[in-house]
């Protein structure tokens, strides 16, 4: 079972690295959206500092959302998803491997580049670590919950808007707690509660979301 997990993970990573430019797209999108705000609102540090946590978190949300497509869509179209579902390994494990690969390829880069964006948006130095930690706990949940949405819409043509309609409301708790953690850390207060909440949601998502995704795939992707 572990072997199947590693095997699929390695396959997805290898496939992704074959088209490297595509790999960078969500990351560029993330940076681009955040840098639109100073242009649209004001470059003044006072205002940007107030908006920073929200802007960075919303941009991360959208960036993950746009990259969700490659989680199952390609596999569905070329038929390799059918093979996965026919394999003797439990589908939940395979789903977990695919989601983990997706997070390594989109979520983790966002986490790593976040300090730069924090600098762009004048996030105080003492809040940068919170920004990283909150994204580190939050982005896997975005991938996990997003996987449910993708698997539900995998057979729908032009399902992009539909996917956001389904998934964005479910992202709200992560957005609230993630952005607030950064906000509170900027004021120099403790953010243990917020981070614990994010960790709890992550634990819940890891245990339940792959199950729901597996069920969803059996419903929609079987031909």
């Amino acid at each position, binding site marked *: 079972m572990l072997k199947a997990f590693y095997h699929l993970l390695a396959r997805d990573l290898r496939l992704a690295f074959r088209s490297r430019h595509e790999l960078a797209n969500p990351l560029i999108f993330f940076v681009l959206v955040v840098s639109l705000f100073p242009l649209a609102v004001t470059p003044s540090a006072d205002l940007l500092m107030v908006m920073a946590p929200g802007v960075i978190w919303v941009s991360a949300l959208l960036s993950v959302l746009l990259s969700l497509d490659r989680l199952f869509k390609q596999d569905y179209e070329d038929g390799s998803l059918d093979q996965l579902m026919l394999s003797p390994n439990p589908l939940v494990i395979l789903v977990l491997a695919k989601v983990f690969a997706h997070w390594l390829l989109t979520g983790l880069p966002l986490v790593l580049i976040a300090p730069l964006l924090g600098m762009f948006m004048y996030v105080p130095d003492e809040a940068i670590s919170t920004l990283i930690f909150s994204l580190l706990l939050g982005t896997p949940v975005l991938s996990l919950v997003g996987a*449910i949405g993708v698997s539900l*819409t995998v*057979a729908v043509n032009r*399902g992009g808007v539909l996917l956001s309609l389904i998934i964005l*409301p479910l992202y*709200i708790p992560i957005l609230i707690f993630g952005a607030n953690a950064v906000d509170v850390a900027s004021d120099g207060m403790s953010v243990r509660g917020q981070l614990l909440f994010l960790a709890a949601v992550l634990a819940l998502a890891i245990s339940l979301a792959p199950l729901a995704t597996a*069920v969803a795939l059996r419903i929609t992707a079987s031909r």
Partner: protein
Amino acid sequence: MFKRIWGWIQRFSSPKHFYSISGKMIPWFAISAIFLGVYGLYMGLFVAPTDYQQGESYRIIFIHVPAAWMSMFIYVVMAVSAGIGLIWQIKLADMIAAASAPIGAWFTFIALVTGSLWGKPMWGAYWVWDARLTSELILLFLYFGYMALQSSIEDQRTADKASGLLAIVGVVNIPIIHYSVQWWNTLHQGATVSKLDKPSMHVDMLIPLLVMAIAAKLFYAAIVLVRARNQVLYRERNRQWVRELVEKL
């Protein structure tokens, strides 16, 4: 014993049997909904005393609160019947779930609009990011997502199962969303004094509120059955019994 119950459930939930039974139930639900609704309106508009803080504007409560209760109640009913449809493959449960969504969305919409109409005299603004209104707004998005998914998948069985799973995921999420919105609201509570929360509840105010809530439930029961019957006719349109029935109409 178990087998007998199972057999009974299957017989009752066969679309044909449901169609004839529900036809007899609808008038009862409709009549009692009208009766209670009129009684509730009379009690609410004529008998209930004026609120000493909010004046007459509080009478919106008799619309707003039942609508808000219904919006959540219907979502739960939808998720539970979708779950039954998903696990035990009972087609009727899927139809009830699909028939519930538009009614639930309507109630949510009414709760939102009446909430904001109540907010104007109380807060001085039509929209305030109050915890309850925000939760209702998110609930409306959840309904829209369900309906969009349901209508965008062509195969009926797949559409039922996929949107049913989404409803279940939504219902698991609702407490988390609710809690985080509540928490978010207490952080940002500036000028908003949540007057919507506790209008001092006189018994004469409570009775019409509860009567209206029950009337709304009965109304939902009648309408959901009518809608589910439409679904039965449409989905079983190639069956002999539907054809015989339609020819008589």
